[in-house]
């Protein structure tokens, strides 16, 4: 099992001789195989929280568990996939070679063949292309394929489609949901789009800023698999409104 458990997680940064509290008292359980969205105003620490789960940063207080282990054990066992805001591909490697990078690092046999992943993210025929020859959306697909190369137990995404246009973004979201369903990984998506959060997730954690805290937790009990026409549904709008209300009540408390 790979539930992600956050207990009283706090994070302070030293900036010169000033201490800034980025996150305080974060409590949450993200069940194994679920899809969670983190949403909040900029500067609320949602990207920081994602990096704490990935063990890129260590929390200054509280504890994070992935399954029965600390995040650094999960990281060193190559169980975490991470998709950054920008694709972060190595420019001298081809598409397939970029996807193979985590496999080389782990020194284990690939859980899924890179060629198969290229097909999964819809890039068949571009296996040997260099990142510079691909559009932004295609590069981000490569980044997602790379994150899936070892079938990670945890898939962390930091506004992966933030730089894409609306149409590409919605297509990518549907593809991502299919991939997630197929792989059964525990997914965490940082976003600042309310409709994206509701469309994708089982639950939305709304963070408020200064310091970053969980303002509200909204369960999204919309049926799966989800398609674009779900966005016309009154139930979808009701959930959107609930997230929006939580976001703005958080703003009021902060102000």
């Amino acid at each position: 099992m790979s539930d992600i458990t956050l207990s009283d997680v706090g994070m302070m940064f030293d900036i010169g001789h000033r201490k800034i509290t980025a996150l305080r008292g974060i409590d949450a359980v993200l069940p194994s195989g679920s899809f969670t969205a983190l949403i909040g105003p900029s500067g609320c620490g949602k990207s920081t929280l994602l990096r704490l789960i990935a063990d890129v940063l260590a929390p200054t207080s509280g504890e994070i568990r992935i399954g029965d282990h600390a995040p650094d054990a999960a990281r060193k066992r190559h169980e975490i996939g991470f998709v950054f805001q920008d694709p972060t591909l190595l420019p001298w490697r081809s598409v397939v070679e970029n996807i193979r990078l985590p496999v080389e690092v782990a020194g284990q046999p690939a859980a899924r063949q890179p060629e198969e992943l290229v097909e999964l993210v819809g890039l068949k025929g571009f296996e040997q292309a260099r990142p510079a020859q691909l559009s932004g959306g295609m590069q981000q697909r490569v980044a997602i394929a790379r994150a899936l190369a070892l079938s990670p137990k945890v898939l962390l995404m930091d506004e992966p489609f933030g730089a894409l246009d609306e149409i590409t973004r919605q297509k990518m979201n549907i593809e991502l949901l299919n991939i997630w369903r197929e792989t059964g990984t525990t997914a965490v998506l940082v976003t600042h789009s309310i409709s994206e959060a509701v469309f994708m997730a089982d639950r939305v954690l709304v963070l408020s800023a200064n310091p970053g805290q969980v303002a509200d937790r909204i369960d999204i009990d919309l049926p799966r698999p989800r398609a674009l026409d779900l966005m016309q549904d009154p139930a979808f709008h009701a959930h959107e409104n609930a997230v929006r209300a939580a976001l703005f009540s958080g703003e009021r408390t902060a102000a």
Partner: protein
Amino acid sequence: MPGGPMAEATSDAPAPPRRPFAMARSGRLTGLVKLLLAVAVIVALWQAIIFWWQVPAFIAPTPGAVAGAFVSHFQEIVSSIAYTLRSVLLGMGLALILALILAGLFTLSPLLSRALLPLVIILRTAPILAIAPILILIFGRGLTTSIAVVVMVSFFPIMVNAAKGLGSTPPNALELMRVAGATWGQTFHKVRLPYALPYVFTGIRLASAGAVLSAMLAEWLSGAPGIGTFILEASSYRDQPRMWAGVVTSVISAVAFFALTTQAERRLAG
């Protein structure tokens, strides 16, 4: 200016589509032709200056006399320049390895970098002339001293550039490797070093410009049988054509070595 900007624009318009065609047809050939032309111009100027101002042969020989000396001392020149180039290649290679190791250690620990960098700078700024006797004492009067001098001169520009390159890895790429559970060595080899390659090559290019000269300097001080010693001997006999045959050979070798590193850079880091 007759015609004004309008006429300029119309006369420029058909040019762009013609240029790439002409370049593609004769790119390599024009390079060689340019080189030969440059050599011809230099030789002609050289001859012209001697002819015009009636420069006596004991100050500067004619190109013909130098060519004659080159032919009659051909074997000695070849073995001398081979000796010098061997110390240049070995010295540069060793400097590259040492520079990468030290630059790599610097990325591992900023403290180490602050402790060692002043020492490296002292070693670099101390005149070779002063250090050479110590090197000769340690390494003898042969190839090893030449190599040591080339290393001392080449090491610094390579190391400084490599350190800068290794420090300029995009932070996201480093986070990517961390999340993937990569070891320090894996991150260095798969991400840091490739991102640093253009910087490393800049360092190699800077160092290669002076490497042949520093090997010759070492020979002047140690008497090792390279092209530097060949030039020095000819000079002490006041044999101007022989000396200039050596000088021309060393200059051509230095330019060729520089061109070689530039080519390698284009292949590997372009």
